[in-house]
């Protein structure tokens, strides 16, 4: 496990803006925490688990941040709280965000090793077993690796009906 004991770590730090110019989805790991790692501000080893501080992933909506964390080697991030968009982005790519209260995060970090069970929703370390909450559909997706868009397209009929029923608003952008 790796530990980054800082609050409010923003996505500009996780993956600085100069690396957002790439049009690919892979290969962002080598740029993770680019400035902090190169300036010797922090040390970080690639491990399956990262324990972080509160409000992790705040700021920009860039999915490049979870891409970089995953590409670097992390499979799960344990923190007292996450920024909303970052949390959603993680779940879309199979990077597991685990919310534990600050005390338990510290215990896990101090233990240095832990096992996370998505099925049971538990984090187990030498000093305890801590339960975490996760939405059933996110859990289902993380375990099953399902194609989100494919699932929504199964509802194409309902979407057609919504549009026909006048639910959609606004004029055509193509006609401006």
């Amino acid at each position, binding site marked *: 496990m790796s530990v980054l004991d*800082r*609050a*409010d770590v*923003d996505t*500009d*730090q996780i993956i*600085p*803006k*100069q690396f*957002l*110019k*790439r*049009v*690919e*989805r892979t290969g962002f790991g080598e740029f993770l925490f680019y*400035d902090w790692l190169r300036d010797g501000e922090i040390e970080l080893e690639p491990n399956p688990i990262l324990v972080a*501080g*509160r*409000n992790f992933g*705040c*700021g*920009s*909506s*860039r*999915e*490049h941040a*979870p891409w970089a964390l995953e590409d670097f080697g992390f499979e799960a991030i344990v923190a007292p*709280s996450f*920024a*909303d*968009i970052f949390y*959603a*982005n993680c779940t*879309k*790519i199979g990077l597991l965000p685990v919310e534990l209260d600050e005390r338990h995060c510290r215990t896990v970090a101090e233990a240095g090793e832990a096992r996370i069970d998505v099925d049971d929703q538990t984090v187990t370390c030498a000093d305890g077993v801590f339960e975490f909450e996760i*939405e059933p*559909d996110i859990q289902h997706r993380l375990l099953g690796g399902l194609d*989100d*868009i494919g*699932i*929504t*397209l199964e*509802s*194409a009929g*309902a*979407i057609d009906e*919504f*549009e026909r029923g006048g*639910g*959609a*608003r*606004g*004029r*055509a*952008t*193509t*006609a*401006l």
Partner: protein
Amino acid sequence: MPQTMFDKIWSAHEVSEGLIYIDLHLVHEVTSPQAFDGLRLAGRGVRRPDKTLATADHNVPTDGTKAARLIADQLSRVQVETLERNCEEFGVPIYSLGSERQGIVHVIGPELGVTQPGMTIVCGDSHTSTHGAFGALAFGIGTSEVEHVLATQCLVQRRPKTMRISYAGELGAGVTPKDLILATIGRLGTGGMVGHAVEYAGPAIESLSMPGRMTICNMTIEGGGRAGMIAPDETTFEWVRGRQGAPEDFEAATAAWRELPTDPGASFDTEVEVEAGEIAPMVTWGTSPGMVVEVTDAVPDPAAMDSPADRESAERALAYMGLEAGTPMTEVAPERVFIGSCTNSRVEDLREAAAAVDGRKVADSVRGMVVPGSQQVKADAEAEGLDDVFRSAGFEWREAGCSMCLGMNPDILIEGERCASTSNRNFEGRQGKGGRTHLVSPTMAAAAAVEGHFVDIRDWK
């Protein structure tokens, strides 16, 4: 049962439980290339190109470069050209570099009138919350979700909690919507609104113009909020009326929009009350928007902070910012001034800044830049002669784009440079590696440019 505005918009867009229909999808060059790639790989198309609109803003130089192929930076050029190619292939309308409608995505939506009350609006950009100023539900999404919306025009969403922040009284003279939102974030913290759709309400909000309301909703994400919203009223309708994207049957549309505001007696998960009259001009001192004080205050002392985590963050922030605890904010001297960004780059913002500098000169120690939010804002400002006011004062007058808000284009700070900025984020390195950002209102930025240090705009003559 009485409903909040959020409840009404949410339920009107539920195709099925948790599946939300999106009325308008805004697209830019940074967060979309991988989404279009995903569509190609899966052999999928864009379901509703007519509910999608693209522009180039993050990467574009503001020096007058007229077309994507002329962008000097190779990676930026590829990204903007990729957007143009993707839009052509998938039939998505685009206003790229060279178009008179090009501009920051959150400026052009409202400007074209495609941002309207009651809509659901998304974009692969966290400042999408801006559009909530019209009484829309608008929020930022990641690239996987961009692909999802392109393919299905829908999003799978967790229903956020609701929060109302009510502002009693009126803002004092010289105090702007930027100060209001900075003060709010300072009070609630950068995680204070996490998980919530936030409605801003009360007399101090109702009396604001649309640009002022957009500034407030824009920075909701800096408080961690999912979306910011303001009830639509006559001010809103007057903004939309007559714009290219306005509804054909405007009277019918306004009748429906009048039903949107939160019903009396509706309940929110969280309620906050703020006395608007007590808000002062604000300046950030640290590396997160919540690290903010009144301009008459001094740089805070980390030793006086209760929590060890706050103390540590503050110490690190002061070291990065090159500031000492106890220094009056009015003695802090920026070398750069940036007026622009999706937070404060509309004609009204530029008008206020211009009024502050009219007939004066930018201090010798300062380099000042004004970057209109869109080509249309630029044209409107020039028609009023604002460009002359800025140029005569010694400001650079540039072309539309995100510019120095985020350092993805040539407009950046160099290491150690201090900047008074009307943008939204003072994160480490945001405006350039080692750059030091102080977030302020347009008038505070303009005054700092003239004096060479921050001043209390309320008694600046």
